């Protein structure tokens, strides 16, 4: 079993593994851009790889695609070693990298046709696939236009269609919703969900949009400065980094009560928001003793409810914790 970082253990009942990285590292002129990454991505899920700019996300994708050779460590993608069988990986994988990778001088259809020919798709299959993808992304009516004048969002959509053209078993998507308007981004998220559900494709997704990651990803990895800070399900990540938050609605939250609460070992933090009190608990601690304390201090409690922190809050908390 590969160590899975801070959060959660890989559930072996999840089926085959699409990506397995063991102590993967890459150095550039003495600086480790990616340092000792170990993780697994099961087949047929969306794996979110989250991290700030320059954290090593793109380098990791390049290593997994066999475009760069690891300085140390190993990785297998779809059962192929990244060092020795890079061509076999690229045969079965698709990628939308930092840029859509499209030829401005060619039409939308010619761009997809070129990539279909690269993967030796028969002419009939190419035509059918191009029509299906362009229709899916709302670009069919503009198939004969050269894409040089297209908006960034349209190019991004065509770039995703390009990455999916040859029906890859695994798709690397580097910031796929960058440049898309909220409606197009939401539609894309739905398309990706359908793709995973319908075709069993595995998606390795890097994104800054944590709301999107929370919706799409079954597992996530968090990377910063080349180090993997955590990897596991989104629930694991939220639970382990944020603990649980409790909101107390009522009256009479005086300074003394707040000091009493702050002094309790299970309280990680607290504050007043719109007249109600929120308390961050350590390790899913019980709320009842705190309620008793507040009642004893004269607080009139109307309602107590547990809040689940978002992935975004968990991510920020993780970043702050590791600084």
């Amino acid at each position, binding site marked *: 079993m590969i160590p899975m970082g801070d959060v959660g253990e890989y559930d072996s009942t999840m089926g085959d593994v699409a990506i397995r990285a063991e102590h993967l590292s890459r150095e550039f002129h003495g600086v480790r851009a990616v340092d000792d990454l170990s993780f697994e991505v099961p087949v047929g899920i969306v794996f979110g790889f989250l991290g700030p700019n320059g954290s090593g996300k793109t380098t990791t994708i390049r290593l997994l695609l066999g*475009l*760069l050779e690891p300085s140390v460590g190993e990785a297998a993608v779809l059962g192929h070693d990244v060092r020795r069988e890079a061509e076999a990986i*690229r045969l079965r994988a698709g990628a939308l*990298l930092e*840029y859509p*990778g499209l030829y401005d001088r060619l039409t939308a259809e010619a761009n997809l046709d*070129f990539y279909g020919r690269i993967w030796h798709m028969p002419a009939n299959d190419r035509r059918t696939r191009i029509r299906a993808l362009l229709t899916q992304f709302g670009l069919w009516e503009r198939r004969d236009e050269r894409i040089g004048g297209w908006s960034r969002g349209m190019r991004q959509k065509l770039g995703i269609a390009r990455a999916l053209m040859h029906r890859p078993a695994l798709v690397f998507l580097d910031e796929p919703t960058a440049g898309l308007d909220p409606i197009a981004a939401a539609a894309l998220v739905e398309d990706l969900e359908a793709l995973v559900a319908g075709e069993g494709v595995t998606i390795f997704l890097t994104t800054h949009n944590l709301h999107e990651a929370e919706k799409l990803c079954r597992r996530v990895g968090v990377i910063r400065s080349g180090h993997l800070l955590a990897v596991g399900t989104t629930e694991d990540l939220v639970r382990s980094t944020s603990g649980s938050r409790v909101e107390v609605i009522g009256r009479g939250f005086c300074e003394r009560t707040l000091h009493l609460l702050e002094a309790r070992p299970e309280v990680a933090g607290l504050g007043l928001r719109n007249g109600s009190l929120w308390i961050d608990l350590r390790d899913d601690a019980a709320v009842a003793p705190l309620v008793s304390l507040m009642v004893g201090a004269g607080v009139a409690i109307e309602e107590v409810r547990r809040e689940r922190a978002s992935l975004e809050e968990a991510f920020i908390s993780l970043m702050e914790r590791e600084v």
Partner: protein
Amino acid sequence: MIADIWTVTTKEWREYVILRGSARGGLLGLLVFAGFIGVVMPVELGASWVDTPIAIVSAFWLPLVLVLSVIGDSFAGERERHTLETLLATRLPDRAILLGKMAAAVGYGWALTLIATLLGLLAVNLVHGHGRLLLFRPLAGLGIAEVSLLGAALTAGAGGLVSLRSATVREAQQRLSIAVMGVFFGLLIGLQAMPRAWLNRLGEAILGAGEGPLLLVVGLLLGLVDVALLVALAIRFRRARLILD
């Protein structure tokens, strides 16, 4: 492998045509160019165009100009337009990408040179034929095909090497222009610096060798340089290096 090379080559050709603005504009530009080289020049020279080595010399420099206009774009253009990494992330083998791009440039320069030469032959016959058929001697025809192909390959190989390590098309073209000027002036200065006796001996050797052996030697020399350039390109073509550049 052949199918992969062909895929890359045809994509490059599509881009070459559109590179000149639009398919119609590109075609018009090519027609004007081919018209001047293939019609105006041969008509001006008349029957001597088929009798003397002028057509062979023209068939050597014409592909140089044609290939130089597109080869800078081969790798530097892809890098500049951010399509190179995506292309490298496909299943295409290194050799298919490299040979596909080289074949596109060589095919473009060679084919247009042959078309221009045939146009010239037609024009010379129409204007200066006066009822008789003016044709190249078989060896001259072979020489035209040989030097135009090897000249195109020479420019593609050298241009490919420059383009491989250039950040932009403009940078590649500037480097290529400097290299061409360097070779041209180097030859000129070299010839001028050569003692008169050596020059005479070289001239006599060329004139005395006969057309066949001369074409064979030129073909062998150009062929060797072309192969050396292709080997250098294959050595320098490294996916990781291209991405990190």
